[in-house]
C-alpha cells in the first residue's frame, strides 16, 4: 500500500511503537488496508454519507445548569496534581 507511513500515523496517534511492533503492525496494516480497499470500486459519487444509524436533526438541550463534580472529585482520578490543577510536565509554547 503506497503511502502507508507507519511512523507518521503512529506519531499522529501518539503511540510509541517498538521495532517489532513497527514491523508486525506495518505488514498487518498493509494487508488490512488492501482488504478494505475493496470499496474503492463502488460508484458512490452521487450518494450522501450516512453519519448515524438513525438520522434526525436539531437535538438540543436547554441552557440550564446541571450539577457537575466537586473539585476534589474531579482531581481524585488525576495521576498527578498541583494545587487545584492537573499536573503536567512543563509545556513550552
Amino acid at each position, binding site marked *: 500500500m503506497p503511502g502507508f507511513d507507519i511512523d507518521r500515523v503512529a506519531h499522529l496517534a501518539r503511540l510509541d511503537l517498538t521495532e517489532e511492533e513497527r514491523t508486525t503492525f506495518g505488514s498487518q496494516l498493509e494487508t488490512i488496508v488492501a482488504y478494505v480497499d475493496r470499496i474503492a470500486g463502488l460508484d458512490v459519487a452521487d450518494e450522501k454519507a450516512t453519519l448515524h444509524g438513525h438520522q434526525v436533526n436539531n437535538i438540543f438541550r436547554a*441552557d440550564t445548569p446541571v450539577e457537575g463534580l466537586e473539585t476534589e472529585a474531579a482531581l481524585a482520578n488525576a495521576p498527578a496534581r498541583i494545587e487545584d490543577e492537573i499536573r503536567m510536565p512543563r509545556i513550552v509554547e
Partner: protein
Amino acid sequence: MEYEVVIGLETHVQLKTTTKMFCGCSTAFGASPNAHVCPVCLGYPGALPAMNQEAIRYTVMAGLMLGCKIADYAKFDRKNYFYPDSSKNYQITQLDYPLCLGGGVEIVGEGGEKKTVRIHHIHLEEDVGKLTHRAGCSGVDFNRAGTPLMEIVSEPDMRSADEAIAYLTALREMMIYAGVSECNLEEGNMRSDVNISIRPKGQQAYGTKIEIKNMNTFSGIHAALLYEIERQKAACDAGQALRQETRRWDTEAGETAVMRSKENSDDYRYFPEPDLMPIALSAEQVAAWAAQLPEAPAKRRERMIAEYGIPEYDAGVLSADRALADFFEATAKRCGNGKLASNWVMAEVLALTAKTGVELSDSQLTPEALGDLLKLLEGKTINGPTAKALLPELFEKGGDPAAMVKERGLGQVSDAGAIEAFVDAVLEANPKVVAEVKAGKGAAIGFLVGQVMKQSKGKASPQMVQELLRKKLA
C-alpha cells in the same frame, strides 16, 4: 518599494450562555481551578456532548446582525490534535457546514470612505482549558473547557492596522448590541487570530501569510500589526523570503516571535462528530429569532440623527450602548424634544453615573421621569437649576417630577410683579455693585442675578430676572 497591507481576522467571541456548549457546567468567569467541571467537559470515559440550544440561537442572532445567510444545514466535526488543555484530544467545531455564511461589517476606511469588511462565515465551537506554566511543571484548569465560542472569520479586506481596529470595534459593538456576548476583553471574551501579509502595490496575488495567535486587546492587536507590517516590509525590501508561520505577540518585548507548532504536522483528521445530530433550522425558527433582533448600531445612529435632529457625535455616543440608546429614545419620545433629551442624557445623566459609579440600569431614574422633568423645564414650569437639582434625587430614589415640584412649591416664579420686588430690594442693598455696572463693568450683573435668585429661593425665571435688571440699570 510601496506595499499594500492585507489583513484578515478570525475572531473568537464567547457567547453569554449560562452553561457550556455541550454540558450543564457554569461559564462564570473567575472561579477557582477545576470548580466548573463534569464528566463531559473533562472528557471522562463514556461522557457525551449535548448541544446547548441557546448557543445556537446566539450564533444565529449574531449572523443575522452581520447580514449573514443562516445555513439550512449545519453540523459539527471533530478536529483531532493532542494537547493538554484539550480534554478529549479533539475539539468539537464546524469544518465545512457552519451556521452562518457571508455578511459584512461596515467601517470607515483609511481614506475616510465607508467600506465593508466581508464576513466569510461564522462557526460555533468549544473552548479549551487553561494552562498555567510554573517552575518545573504546567497545571491544567478545565473551567473554560467547553465554553461556547463563535468564530467570526473575515475576508482579507482590511488594509491597515487602523482598519483592523475599526472592524473589531464595530464587531464588538454589534455583538454587544445583539445581546449575544459581553465582549469583555479583560476576561478574554473576544480573542482574535490575526492574518497579515503584504504585497507590492498593484500586485493581485497575496503575499506570504503570517498568523498572530490569540490576541485579546485591541491595543495589542494594533501594536502587533504595526510591528509585523514593518518587519515584513523590511524583510521584503532586503529581498528575504517570508515563511508562512504562526507567531505570538510578546507585549513586554514589543515584538512578534515564532510559536512552536501545536502538532508538528497540521493533520487534524477532521470528521463529522458522531455524537451529535445535524442542525437544520426551519425558516420559521430563524424568522422568530430575527424578530428578537435589535436594530444594528450603525443604522440606529443614522436614524437617530434624522429622527431627533441630534448631532452625529451625540448619536455616536448614545447608540454605542444599546441600553443607553433605548433610554434616550424613550426620554425623547416622552418629552417631545430630542435635542433637549440628548443634551440632558449626554451631559447630566452620564455625569451622574460617572460621579456615583452607579450604572444607569441600576439607578432609579426612568426615561418617563426624565422625560416629564424635561417637559416641566421646556414648559417653563421649573427653571434649569431646579431641574438639575431634582435629577440626583430621581436618580437615587425615583419619583414623579410633577408631584415633587407641586409638593415642594418649586414652580418657577414668572410673575413680573413679584420678580420686580426682588430686583428692587437687591438693587437697593447693593449700591456699590450697581455703580460698577453702570460704570461699564458688565460682568458684575451676574452677581446681582445671583442675589435675586437667592431672594426668590431659586424659583425666579433667570431670564426674566436678567431682562429686568438690564432694563433698570440701563
